[in-house]
């Protein structure tokens, strides 16, 4: 067997290119910068475009323009950049512009600590833009996930015409690890669905029973309109409450109703467990080590690693938690995703094991929280 050495950010860049990404724009920010570096090395010789914007707002704006022209696009930043993206993100949500956004989280709030990790943006990614409509957020746990989930994210962005976030963390992004290249598997690329022929094209019209409007690129032979205004199927501003409701309900339910299909989790049940450790991102690795340790100590605990954070994989979480006395949520923040677990599992005992000080949560901390929590 042969192994390679790769950091998470390189894996995100390679996964994106494998998925057909041909346009990237970003603004330097630790710990996301190496994605920009890798995309700049990879895209131009493939005929793609990689641009450093004058700021974050421009970088995502370039991507939205290029996406509307039909390209698969990605941008990458950290929490402070997501703040600046916010208004453009709500544009991409409401106007159904496919884009993959890598957020390499660092210790916040605010400027925080550029070179320290955290998972402090997991609620922000879902709710940090105006209008309160759903998005898709995938959380990698290791370098392999960075590649595979990024490639998958491109397909989801195309299929759902939605922003899809990769919620990474400095501790995965800038940590190198060995991996077998055969484990990197980009799914077959999916393209945006083109409209059926023979009917006049309306940019936001969906067929009966369909949730996502077909796409034609801006700049092709058929005229295409895109707008950030509240719009009807024709892409013109509308004030008709019924039309507004139809449009916004559809944008909401195209994601929410697909929660089961979008759910990616790893469940490790174990006989004799009374506790479920629920973790995501880099902390899920400490959780897995803690579960091993607990098994050795004769106090086995089940483990659920959540990789689709949003929409919350409610059904899968409920199945994994069924019959267990206690659910321990482990996350590298002061208590964010635990709110979703409390919502999803009313009446069950929910514990919280969190930390946000620039250090990884250790397996020992989790073991302690299981035994003495």
């Amino acid at each position, binding site marked *: 067997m042969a*192994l390679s050495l790769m950091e998470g950010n390189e894996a995100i860049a390679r996964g994106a290119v494998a998925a057909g990404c041909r*346009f990237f724009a970003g603004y330097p920010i630790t710990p996301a910068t190496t994605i920009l570096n890798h995309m700049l090395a990879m895209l131009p010789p493939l005929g793609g475009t990689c641009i450093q914007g004058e700021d974050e707002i421009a970088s995502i704006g370039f991507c939205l323009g290029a996406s509307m022209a039909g390209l698969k*696009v990605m941008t990458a930043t950290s929490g402070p950049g997501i703040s600046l993206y916010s208004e453009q993100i709500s544009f991409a949500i409401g106007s159904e512009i496919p884009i993959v956004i890598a957020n390499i989280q660092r210790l916040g709030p605010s400027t925080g600590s550029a070179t320290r990790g955290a998972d402090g943006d997991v609620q922000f990614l879902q709710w940090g833009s105006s209008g309160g409509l759903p998005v898709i957020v995938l959380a990698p746990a290791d370098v392999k996930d960075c590649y595979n989930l990024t490639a998958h994210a491109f397909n989801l962005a195309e299929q759902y015409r939605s922003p899809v976030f990769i919620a990474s963390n400095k501790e995965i992004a800038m940590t190198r690890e060995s991996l077998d290249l055969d484990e990197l598997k980009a799914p077959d690329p999916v393209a945006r669905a083109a409209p059926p022929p023979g009917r006049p094209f309306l940019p936001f019209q969906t067929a009966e029973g369909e949730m996502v409007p077909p796409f034609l690129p801006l*700049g092709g032979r058929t005229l295409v309109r895109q707008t950030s205004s509240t719009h009807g199927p024709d*892409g013109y501003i509308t004030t008709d409450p019924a039309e507004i409701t139809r449009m916004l309900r559809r944008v909401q339910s195209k994601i929410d109703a697909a929660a089961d299909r979008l759910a990616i989790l790893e469940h490790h049940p174990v006989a004799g467990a009374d506790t479920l450790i629920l973790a995501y991102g880099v902390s899920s690795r400490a959780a897995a080590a803690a579960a091993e340790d607990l098994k050795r100590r004769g106090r086995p605990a089940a483990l659920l690693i959540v990789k689709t954070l949003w929409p919350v994989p409610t059904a899968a979480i409920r199945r994994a938690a069924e019959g267990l006395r206690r659910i321990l949520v482990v996350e590298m923040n002061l208590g964010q995703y635990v709110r979703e677990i409390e919502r999803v599992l009313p009446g069950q005992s929910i514990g919280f094991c969190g930390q946000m000080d620039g250090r990884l949560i250790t*397996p020992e901390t989790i073991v302690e929280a299981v035994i003495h929590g």
Partner: protein
Amino acid sequence: MDSLLNAARPPVFCPGCSHERITHTLDKAFQAMALGGERIAMVSDIGCSGLFDTFFNTHALHGLHGRALTYAAGLKLARPELTVVVTMGDGGQGIGGAHLLAACRRNLDLTLLVLNNFNFGMTGGQYSATTPADAEVGSGFLNRLERPLDICSVAKAAGAPYVVRCSAYRSDIAEVIRKAIEFKGFSVLDIWGICPGRFSRRNRLTTKAIGEMLSQLPPFEGVVPENQRREFGNHYRELAAAQKIVPPPQAIPARFRPVGTGRQEVILLGSAGQRVLTAGEILCLAGLHAGMNVTQKNDYDITVLRGPSISEMILSPQAIGYTGITRPSVVVALGPEGVARRKKLFSGLDDTCLVLQASDVAVPGSRARIHRVDMKGQGIKGADWALASLGVLAKLGRVIRPEMLEAALADRLRGDALAGALEIVRRVEPGASA
């Protein structure tokens, strides 16, 4: 060529608004160029100028306030054959000022029409970046405190190759717009007009007065000779085509026997400039040559050539989950900053741990075995201490073997750099236990 105006959606501007005149003028310019609507993208933002995209049978992208130039750039880079016309008001110009400067510097083939009517029309006539200090607007006295922006002088200073300042009422305005669109590069038109709904209700502004004001300013009539240069998109594609394809990641087969059968954790504690992170990567590559799983987790300050530089490596025949250091096998003390940052680590070390102490770098007391290497005395430069410490580990048979290390160096370095590194790891004296 037929009009591109959308008969179903006629302009909805206030009676007497200069925007309506520009709408018809722009249509004339398109007709004169014989462009079909499918060859044009109208990009607009917020405010009255943001209505423009709805009046034309062209491609259209209407987005956030002040950000129209960002979408236009993405569109143009993705579809260079498209004619991209951006409309923006003085409001959008103000909020998106950074994008205007960058667009001037970049010189992508876009045409920007700034429909400058000296105030925010839609929100109640507040002052904008171009409101005269003596105007009466909806912002109380605030506009009296600030100086209006000279868009054209700024655009010229930022490198715009084509700049026009003109009245919306100029008789040849359709020609002016056509020439700007035909210019191969970024063109900016600062078009002064009247906002009857807000601005001219409280300020006496006539077409004649606009003409007189413009005549007192330095003229901008198109090509700016000193800013002529290559168009960004064409230049980008030419440079991009000359870039080399990035090879797939290197896969390293296991060729050597590993040291030990368990998880081994190594920490390099150094100072910026000692190439600690590179040494850490080489240690990991050495591990791959023996079929080990590896991780490298770095810790550093935001400063570049000052401060601590720390690299934590794990080599293990088993899969590595948790990437933190739990029980170090080796701690390499290379610099006082790194040691100081992790001084709490030492009290927890046990007697199976080796502390490799470079020259006179002081280390806190611990139960670990101390091994001293006189880097200075051997004439090894500070930048090579981390590398030399790998040579010491290989010679001691801790974590790696010499053949693993030399194979790793050959992966990472070439030519003279490789020869120099091999010389250092071969010649370094392994030192002695303290």
